[in-house]
């Protein structure tokens, strides 16, 4: 079996590059999650308060993204995106070669995938806000924006947080798919290391540990946020 020293941080160890790869996983996941959050909020808003055209567009988006494999979306953005960028670049008279970074393609692709499910979570959370508390806000003269910021969002957040935690976990795991673009994140790095050293078991196990560390730590963060957001809704201890 493998030499555990290979995972060390010394000159012969892979420790440092694996650490960097872990950070890259975190970075691309955070970027994709935020991208999905913005998109998910807009889509949820379109579905709840939009006109017929907006509702139809939002509906179409969620249906398409739910029905297409994630890996295909990434290929579409990375390879397809490169083609589009090249076409536009050439048309504008720039000389090639044209490229789109794996990070950006991955962020957009996973953001788009996550946005579809985040919009479902957010819509459900909005619908769970008691109508009466919204009426109470309208009746004191709140406008749409104040109503959203002071009454709807804080209550919807409480409902949405646990499910948003799950969305974040999915994004972290989906980020492994971005390795197909050559972006050196955890998945890519462990397979390179495994190939180079022929210590497959050791490095894939190390990769699993890196993902587990990230997911466990973020789980703690979400739990903390949930506890804080539950103030007032449950026992006085919160």
């Amino acid at each position, binding site marked *: 079996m493998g030499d555990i020293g290979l995972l060390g941080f010394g000159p012969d160890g892979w420790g440092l590059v694996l650490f960097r790869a872990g950070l890259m996983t975190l970075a691309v996941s955070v970027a994709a999650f935020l991208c999905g959050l913005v998109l998910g909020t807009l889509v949820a808003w379109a579905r709840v308060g939009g006109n017929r055209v907006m509702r139809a567009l939002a509906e179409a988006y969620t249906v398409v993204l739910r029905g297409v494999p994630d890996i295909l979306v990434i290929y579409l953005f990375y390879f397809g995106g490169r083609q589009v960028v090249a076409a536009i670049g050439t048309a504008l008279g720039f000389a090639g070669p044209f490229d789109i970074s794996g990070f950006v393609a991955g962020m957009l692709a996973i953001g788009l995938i996550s946005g579809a499910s985040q919009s479902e979570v957010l819509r459900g959370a909005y619908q769970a806000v*008691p109508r*009466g*508390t919204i*009426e*109470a*806000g*309208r*009746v*004191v*003269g*709140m*406008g749409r924006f*104040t109503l959203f910021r*002071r*009454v709807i969002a*804080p*209550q919807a957040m*409480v409902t949405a947080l646990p499910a948003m935690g799950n969305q974040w976990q999915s994004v972290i795991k989906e980020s492994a798919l971005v390795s197909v673009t050559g972006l050196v994140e955890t998945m890519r790095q462990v397979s390179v290391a495994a190939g180079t050293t022929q210590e497959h078991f050791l490095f894939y196990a190390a990769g699993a540990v890196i993902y587990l560390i990230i997911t466990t730590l973020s789980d703690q963060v979400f739990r903390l946020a949930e506890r804080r957001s539950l*103030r*007032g*809704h*449950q026992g*006085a201890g919160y």
Partner: protein
Amino acid sequence: MITASIGPALSLSGLRKSFGHNEVLRGIDLSARDGDVISMIGASGSGKSTLLRCIPMLEIPDAGTIAVGEDSLSPKGGRLTRTEDAIARRMRGHLGFVFQNFNLWPHRTVLENVIEAPLFVQGRSRAEAVDEALALLEKVGLAEKRDAWPAHLSGGQQQRVAIARALAQHPRAILFDEPTSALDPELVGEVLKVIRRLAEEGRTMLIVTHEMGFAREVSSRVVFLHQGRIEEDGTPAEVFGAPKSERARAFLASHFDRNR
């Protein structure tokens, strides 16, 4: 505190509202002068809650005019236009509304519930809003609960906070939508006591209620609604003592039978 201006505090004319094919309000005319305490009674489905909810445009009437102080609106059902919405918000700013189910904001403490609109709608200073809110909580007997969460209060306490929240609006008129109907019987008294005190202060109030004894005692006027129309409108002595319409007689008879 109560400013007597020219004209009624509140006036409704020709108010109509349907839900689908069900015509709930069939032409309501009603106006309240400053200091009036008007109780609205009637069977469930008579339209009294809908009438009350039309005043701050929680329901948009299909026809008719609503005036609060100097502002008035004559919407035609559906949605309000941008201009109408701005007027509606100004009108709401001059009203207090107390819901049957309290509708406190569960994510804010008692004090935060009361200072919310003064701070985030009216733009008053925090110090001023807090001072006033504490005085209002004192008035409804809940000063010591200022930092409690609504979920930890009894229904009667929540409703008293809701009344303090309505008073923080500096309302020209306060609207009560069956303020004691969601309460356990033993908690009704504490809420009625607060409303009675407001009546004694000369506040302008419209109260939808099933508490006949209370209506008789605090009101300057009683209005009886039946199938979306006002059937009786008079002093408590007139409406309770000598109702003119057959329907009002039947309604009151059944009510007093049940309660006595």
